[in-house]
């Protein structure tokens, strides 16, 4: 057993830690949120120069994401690197986009979820019909992270089979500006750009197909598992920040003539927050290291367990941080509320607690 980071991973961690400390204070974050597209192009360029947009090994990604989470970074790292980048990585990247992603030259988005699907990756209505020289895509996608900024969309569509069949899904690379692509931009509650994407008879060439026709689900599942663990690592950073911020507040805030930290009931609740975080950390390490496991059942158990614990810890820690800060915790001026909102999104993205308990329960029954 070895839970230590390698020297390279430690360097990545230190570099990201330094960047957050020196370049990503509250003002910088607010500037990013208020920029066109909801992120800073300068900061994105810096990420590229530091080599952070090329990160793809699970543990490297975990290290990176935890640091980004600690700084509550809004730059669309998850959508580009973990999700769309992951899909390209596993399908051979025929359009050679990954080097350009690494250089910070393109923005990507993965259009996966659909309005009726909740968290089921195979619940896909979007159709891709073969034509003489390519494909015709039609359908609707929801909450596509980074959609408003994307130059390219990676779209999951059905090429055969019935709704909810496990086989018959394929991946396509679609230019976001293609005729028939309509993106309705929104911000998520936690300040990330996203959008609903409607595809109406979108024409793409034969080369748009990514990976094997009809067999996308296993690839999709693995990449989503990876993105899920990456986002879980981001949540570790958020939770770490909130537990420390709450401890600091308890030590400094005085009521009834003494620091809040002297009240045993609050001490115990802080301990529960900390314990929930550490259990989440253990399972995220477990889930991340299982991502390359060829045993699908073992992978599922490790990843979904981590996700359940992170979702639950995220809620507990986010809510308790606000409650223990009192009125100030409810304000936009204090960053605590922003961490809480991000943690709530984490606890829904890629499947809420019920969804992953369901996956684990099905595995037990199988």
């Amino acid at each position, binding site marked *: 057993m070895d839970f230590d980071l390698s020297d390279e991973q430690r360097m990545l961690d230190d570099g990201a830690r330094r960047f957050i400390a020196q370049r990503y204070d509250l003002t910088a974050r607010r500037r990013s949120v208020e920029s066109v597209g909801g992120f800073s192009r300068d900061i994105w360029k810096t990420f590229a120069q530091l080599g952070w947009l090329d990160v793809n090994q699970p543990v490297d990604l975990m290290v990176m994401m935890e640091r980004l989470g600690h700084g509550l970074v809004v730059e669309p790292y998850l959508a580009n690197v973990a999700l769309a980048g992951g899909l390209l990585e596993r399908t051979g990247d025929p359009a050679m986009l990954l080097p350009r992603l690494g250089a910070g030259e393109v923005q990507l988005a993965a259009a996966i979820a659909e309005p009726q699907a909740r968290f089921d990756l195979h619940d896909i209505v979007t159709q891709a019909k073969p034509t003489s020289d390519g494909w015709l895509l039609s359908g609707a996608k929801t909450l596509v992270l980074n959609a408003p900024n994307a130059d390219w969309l990676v779209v999951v569509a059905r090429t055969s089979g019935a709704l909810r069949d496990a086989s018959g899904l394929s991946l396509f690379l679609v230019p976001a500006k293609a005729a028939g692509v309509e993106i309705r931009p929104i911000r998520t509650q936690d300040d990330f750009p996203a959008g*609903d994407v409607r595809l109406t008879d979108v024409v793409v060439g034969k080369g748009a197909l990514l990976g094997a026709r009809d067999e996308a689900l296993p690839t999709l599942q693995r990449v989503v598992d990876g993105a899920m663990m990456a986002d879980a690592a981001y949540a570790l950073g958020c939770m770490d920040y909130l537990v420390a911020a709450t401890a600091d507040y308890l030590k400094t805030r005085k009521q009834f003539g003494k620091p809040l930290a002297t009240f045993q009931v609050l001490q115990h609740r802080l301990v529960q927050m900390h314990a929930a975080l550490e259990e989440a950390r253990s399972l995220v390490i477990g889930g991340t290291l299982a991502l390359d496991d060829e045993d699908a059942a073992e992978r599922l158990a490790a990843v979904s367990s981590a996700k359940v614990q992170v979702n639950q810890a995220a809620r507990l820690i986010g809510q308790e941080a606000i409650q223990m800060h009192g009125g100030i915790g409810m304000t936009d001026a204090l960053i605590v509320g922003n961490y809480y909102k991000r943690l709530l999104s984490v606890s829904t993205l890629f499947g809420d607690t019920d969804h992953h308990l369901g996956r684990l329960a099905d595995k037990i029954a199988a």
Partner: protein
Amino acid sequence: MNLKETAEDRAFRLAVREFVQRELPADIRKHNEEGWEPEKDEMARWHRILARQGWLAPSWPKDYGGTGWTLMQRHIFEEECALNYCPPVHIFNIAMIGPILIEYGTEAQKQRYLPKILDVEEWWCQGYSEPDAGSDLAALKTDARLEGDHYIVNGTKVWTSLAHWATHIFCLVRTKKDGKPQEGISFLLMDMTARGTSIQPIPTLNGQHIFNQVVFENVRVPKENLIHRENEGWTVAKSLLDHERLFLARVGDNKKRLQRLKDIARKELAHGKPLIEHDWFRRKLAQYEVRVRALDLTVLRFIAKADSGQGLDPSVTMLKLAGTELLQDLLQETVDALGYYGLPFQQHGIANDELAPPFGPEHAIGASNARFRSRAFTIAGGGSEIQHNIMAKHLLK
């Protein structure tokens, strides 16, 4: 024992229901159903409708414009209003300063202020919390110094909900610095337009304007605006909580949010069929039903006891704890039921802003906001930790 509503109470319930269903404007109902806080204009319109019927201030004595209802009737009224998506009444006017004026005000004070509340002309806010006096309210420092016929007030109030609507503020101020902190506090009525009064909004984490900071710089307050006696304001502030605590359980709100959660679960899909058709989801609904029933019957037991003249048990405090936590859980569960449609930032009133148009199915629009707002329910009006302290003190005495 008989847990059935009496024929009279049943008839009263139906009369209230008929009234609110007929009178509540559709736009206000929709806004409330979606989960948004009422706008001032909506609240004013609803107040006027209730005032015409004589139902704006049910808790006040009949002589002052109240209804003379039993607590059970008040409970039924509150519940029917909530179940039919009426906005709440302005609690500072109706549940707080009104009853205080009636109990402690001079005849002149009553004449001056009460009619303007019933006429929906004046709006009050509550100046209690301060930067260093939150859960420890008695630590408040806002200074009021008597100079001739006026108090000169200096200090800062925070978390002042809806101060930006208010024409007046009732304030706890310090008039004596030595002795026990509770014994140097006075209760003052202040005009929000008085020179030296300023308001800064404190936006909430979900981008709403509810809270404010109110700063007083040498504000002159006529001596006759003192309520009760100098240095006895703590007694005044504490008195208003008794019967109102029954209604902090939010029984009607809880029932309607559970109902709405079920409605949403019939529309939202999971694994190819409605959420409500899944056993695992119905078990969650069942657990909420248990909690709502427990809250409901417990409130009814307190009410029945009080209506039969046996007074209010001090453990009534538990109702705020149970009711607010249940409501928080229900509102979060509602967002969860929406899946990915629970994630967009949606804001009422700025529908033209390209970043925040209503998004997704109609039943999703205000759910996230209502959930965020509810986090304050266990902080405001005596946080849950303080409620636990009060209960423990009672149980261990």
